[in-house]
């Protein structure tokens, strides 16, 4: 199997990375024209790994070529979507793969300053990354006249301070400007008016880490690893009730069932599967009979869910679904920035209802109420956090209705726990 990212894991120092062939992608990219690099990335069918799956080459082409203002790259290392821990592995196991990707993206778009916005809780990994950046400056891969070209690039690490919403690209930009992480109304989009109102690209860590291979091996090669409209491989972060939780890199289009049973070792203590959240806590849950599904953006969308960040959370038969509802709704209520009424009021209301169901104080009609509140939040807000809160609630209420109704009726959890 051809892999793109994990073969570099462990090559942490710049010398080890170079010895294994590192920085050849950046070198080659700088010998191409920026247009040629963008063309190659378009051919690769690389889609954003931060959750939305937007085609990367297309996103870059929205940035004006000629700009009197400077342009910026923001690397999204906020990694806040519950269940997600893949970018952490890239940063600690192959920091130079990310730095090389940053050089390629910056060359393609004409950027001279890039910031890595990393979540505050990853403080120790931020230090590792800063060390790697120093090494790259020492070798002349960052700074002035990179690879002898008339091209300069500065790269800085910027720590967040605990706020999930700052992973949303316009909130990230506000936060980087030293403000509260309140998402901005779009349009204008960051591509034309982002950081300091200048043209800005926001890309996820994993998205950028794919670029060196796309340049060295070609866009077509990368596209051929995946399926029709999702090129390459994907890092899946598997957690929950599996025997071997961890990171697995697999071609786009691999079956979710294969990932869980062949790679992650199947369900702990060989229990029965109850459900799988396939792409972080915002993605609608799948029932056991729905998991023989190719893991790519379009297939999951068709199944009414999302590939999202590729964070696969596995639930076995001992899981209380009311509890799952409670944890998920509490999270979004805690993280809403409060700018939009449906989100500010809807998220705590859902959390309150879920909490009372768990506590045995659920009422008749609570499930319909939850679904109504969730529906009324969708598509009406500045950022998609409200939708991210609503979608999993609707799916859980619809797919596990019998159990939840029993929980409400019996005033206690119907799932036998050991």
């Amino acid at each position, binding site marked *: 199997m051809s892999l793109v990212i994990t073969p570099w894991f462990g090559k942490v120092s710049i010398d080890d990375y170079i010895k294994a062939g590192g920085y050849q992608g950046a070198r080659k990219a700088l010998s191409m024209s920026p247009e040629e690099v963008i063309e190659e990335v378009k051919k690769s069918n690389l889609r954003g790994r931060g959750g939305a799956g937007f085609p990367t080459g297309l996103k870059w082409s929205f940035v004006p070529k000629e700009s009197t203002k*400077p342009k910026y790259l923001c690397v999204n290392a906020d*990694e*806040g*979507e*519950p*269940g*997600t*821990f893949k970018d*952490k592995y890239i940063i600690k196991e192959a920091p130079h793969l990310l730095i090389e990707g940053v050089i390629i993206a910056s060359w393609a778009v004409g950027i001279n300053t890039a910031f890595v916005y990393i*979540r*505050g*809780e*990853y*403080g*120790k990994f931020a230090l590792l990354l800063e060390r790697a950046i120093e090494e790259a400056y020492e070798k002349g891969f960052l700074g002035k006249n990179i690879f002898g070209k008339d091209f300069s690039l*500065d790269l*800085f690490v*910027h*720590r*967040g*301070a*605990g*706020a*999930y919403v700052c992973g949303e690209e316009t909130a990230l930009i506000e*936060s*980087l*400007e*030293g*403000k*509260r*992480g309140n998402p901005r109304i779009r349009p204008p989009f960051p591509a034309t008016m982002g950081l*300091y109102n200048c043209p800005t690209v926001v890309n996820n860590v994993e998205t950028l880490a794919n670029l060196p291979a796309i340049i060295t091996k070609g866009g077509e090669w990368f596209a051929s690893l995946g399926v029709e409209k999702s090129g390459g491989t994907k890092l899946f*972060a*598997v*957690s*929950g*009730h599996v025997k071997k*939780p*961890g*990171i697995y890199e697999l071609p786009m289009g691999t079956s979710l069932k294969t990932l869980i049973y062949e790679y992650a070792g199947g369900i702990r203590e060989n229990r029965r599967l109850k459900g799988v*959240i396939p792409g972080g*806590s915002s993605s609608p849950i799948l029932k056991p009979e729905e998991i023989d599904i190719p893991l790519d953006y379009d297939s999951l969308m068709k199944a009414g869910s999302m590939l999202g960040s590729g*964070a696969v*959370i596995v*639930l076995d038969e001992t*899981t209380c679904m009311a*509890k*799952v509802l409670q*944890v*998920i709704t*509490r*999270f979004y209520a*805690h*993280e809403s920035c409060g700018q939009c009424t449906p989100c500010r009021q809807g998220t705590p209301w859902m959390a309150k209802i879920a909490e009372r169901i768990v506590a045995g104080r659920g009422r008749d009609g609570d499930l319909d109420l939850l679904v109504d509140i969730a529906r009324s939040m969708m598509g009406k807000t500045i950022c998609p956090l409200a939708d991210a809160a609503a979608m999993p609630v609707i799916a859980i209420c619809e797919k596990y209705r019998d159990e939840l109704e029993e929980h409400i009726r019996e005033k206690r959890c119907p799932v036998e726990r050991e």
Partner: protein
Amino acid sequence: MKEISPKAMEKIEALIKRYPVKRSALLEVLHIVQQEWGYIDQEGEETVAEILDLEPVRVHEVVSFYTMYERKPVGKHIIRVCRNLTCTLMGAESLISYLKRKLKVDEGGTTSDGRFTLQTVECLGACEIAPVMQVDGEFYGNLTPEKIDRILEEMK
């Protein structure tokens, strides 16, 4: 007025230079000041505002938005236990109860000897080793009550 050490001040000045707009350094400067003083109260906000030429209210609204800034004195060690989904599936709730009993504090509370502050937090990005806690920024996973006892025992 509390002092910022010359070493921290040096770091702050270097930081400010990275950004085309001074205000951008705010989150990073607050991290440094918090490391110096342990928390950021009104005086801390005013000090940072002065360094960055900002209205104190601009600093205040940021300090109160982000969960990692402490606004009142905390213990010598901060324990952050994850309460999000994977950790809950793997038993976080009973560990949180255990920690509360062991330390005789509620969420957000500090032990009477000032050694530990206990906080519950959302997903720490370490679900592969759930249930997880962070103590002073270091990750500890696959937690059990016995393991928690050992880890806290070693923190003086």
